[in-house]
């Protein structure tokens, strides 16, 4: 049979099948786009503000973080001390600015370390049934302990400190990311394009490295933002229970803890650090939400 020449298949992009609810074909860098607009932008601004405060804080802080100012015992907010002073005559604003750094370390070091370890373990183990079963049971086991119980237990080993908080967070994130990656592996390896590579002779490593990992990046990014916000809480909760940073060094969590002890007499005390925590968590959540939405679209 012959074909009429007039019917050329169009070479310009044409979306296939108008499925109800599907969106524009323009998805290029939609994740980046999500961070530049609306909620995502608010999130980025919030997180960036906190990060800048944390990085530049020491330059603008009026006092040292552990400096005890003679006679300035539990002053309310005022000209000299914008956020007041604490029981040990230290400037809360300065302590807050320095305290942010601890949380930044926790958020931007411990979480990525845990995530990387989890992703690596998840990738390596989930391809083969035997290692998969072992790894999944191990992840289950880690997940079985609530974060704070893990924290209390680890503190008994390591003593309180940033390191302990970091280790707790790493231990928490490994199973979270391990499982997430496992889901990705299981999904992606069934995809026709992976099968096509396997037919030609691609081995597990090739598939994991070239197909699975890149295709898991989006859910991993979303989870990373969520995990970071959780990490801020864990630092706060552990410091609240006295398992966090060692005095005299401040962290947001320890400042809130000190503050809430005096909530009745000096309500101003906890406000500053609490606001920073809320801003940081809110920012990270907004980022993760906008990323997740962009991904679904």
């Amino acid at each position, binding site marked *: 049979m012959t074909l009429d020449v007039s019917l050329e298949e169009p070479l310009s992009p044409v979306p296939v099948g108008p499925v109800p609810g599907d969106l524009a074909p323009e998805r290029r860098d939609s994740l980046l786009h999500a961070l530049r607009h609306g909620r995502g932008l608010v999130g980025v601004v919030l997180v960036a503000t906190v990060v800048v405060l944390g990085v530049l804080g020491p330059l603008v802080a009026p006092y040292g973080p552990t400096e005890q100012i003679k006679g300035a015992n539990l002053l309310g907010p005022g000209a000299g001390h914008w956020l007041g002073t604490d029981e040990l005559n230290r400037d809360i604003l300065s302590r807050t600015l320095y305290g942010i750094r601890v949380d930044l370390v926790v958020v931007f070091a411990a979480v990525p370390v845990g995530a990387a370890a989890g992703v690596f373990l998840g990738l390596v183990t989930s391809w083969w049934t035997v290692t998969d079963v072992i790894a999944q049971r191990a992840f289950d086991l880690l997940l079985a302990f609530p974060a704070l119980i893990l924290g209390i237990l680890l503190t*008994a080993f390591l003593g309180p400190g940033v390191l302990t908080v970091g280790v707790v967070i790493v231990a928490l994130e490994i199973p979270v990311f391990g499982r997430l990656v496992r889901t990705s592996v299981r999904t992606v390896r069934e995809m026709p394009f992976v099968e096509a590579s396997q037919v030609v002779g691609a081995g597990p490593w090739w598939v994991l490295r070239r197909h699975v990992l890149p295709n898991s990046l989006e859910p991993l990014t979303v989870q990373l933002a969520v995990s970071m916000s959780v990490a801020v809480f864990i630092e706060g909760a552990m410091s609240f229970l006295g398992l966090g940073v060692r005095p005299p060094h401040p962290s947001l969590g320890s400042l*809130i803890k000190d503050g809430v002890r005096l909530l009745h007499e000096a309500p101003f005390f906890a406000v500053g650090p609490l606001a920073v925590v809320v801003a940081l968590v*809110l920012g990270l959540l907004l980022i993760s939400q906008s990323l997740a939405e962009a991904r679904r679209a």
Partner: protein
Amino acid sequence: MTRYLLSRLGSALLVTALASIGIFALIRLVPGDPVTVLAGPDATPAARDAIRAQLGLDQPFWSQYVHWLGDLARFDLGPSYKLGGDVGSLIADGALNTVVLTLFALVLAAVGAIVTSTAAVVGDRRWLNSLLSGLNTAAVAVPTFATALVLVLVFAVRFPVLPAGGTPPAGFFAQPDIALQYLLLPGIALALPAWAALTRFLTEALRTQMRQPYVTTARALGIPRRRIVLTQALRNALPSTVTVLGLQLGTLLGGAILVEAVFAWPGLGRLVEQGISARDYPVVQVLLLLSVVVFVVTQLATDVIHAWLDPRVRLNGVS
């Protein structure tokens, strides 16, 4: 389905068994000695040795472990080193408090989530969605201990309408109305983040369901939208929500430690903390094992409920 559940049960048992060894060893690796804690600073070495022998801590590791397993199998948890009482009754009291609080929060969160997310999807108004999403984010972004303290300050200290903490003096079941008042503040503080997470998930799941072809079919039949949401979309979104609910239970148990501290709620959190700080091995190892068992049982239960809610799994055994 039975076969599927049996295999899940098997792996649950395996996890528990491995966990028991791990926990037993881990606790003994923690620096610090229960005997010195128990004997106090003024005890003589002879007194400490006597206590050590009395607690069986002079035995080798495996013999201690086997002993413990044997006791566990007979549901004899032995005496607590520090508190002296029987670990079983000690934990039973704490566990009741924690379980009641956690379940109350779980119910609050689940009912709240169903109400708010169906309202959001049925109503589908821009202002309603913004409001709920705002509340939602706020509930997640403010740390639990902060909400808990604010609740105490406002509703117990500033306007004393509810108890500031503690468990109902007459127990939970003798005077339910009083018990409810005691549960309200810690329950809300604990439930808020779980409510937010569940609402977010359920709303999204409902929206996804509302995009499914069967919903279009139903709409094309003239079935009103709210009825579709309530009788069809919700029913389809439930199985996956149950799984998320199961995961939330773990988060709630973790959060309970904080809330219990703020509300002076004598539950498992306090026991764990005291147990570890006193190196009270019998208490701590049972508590840790309990948290593993709770996790494993929850997983199993969500699997069962998930399977039961989904006729495709229930009738055909597709997992």
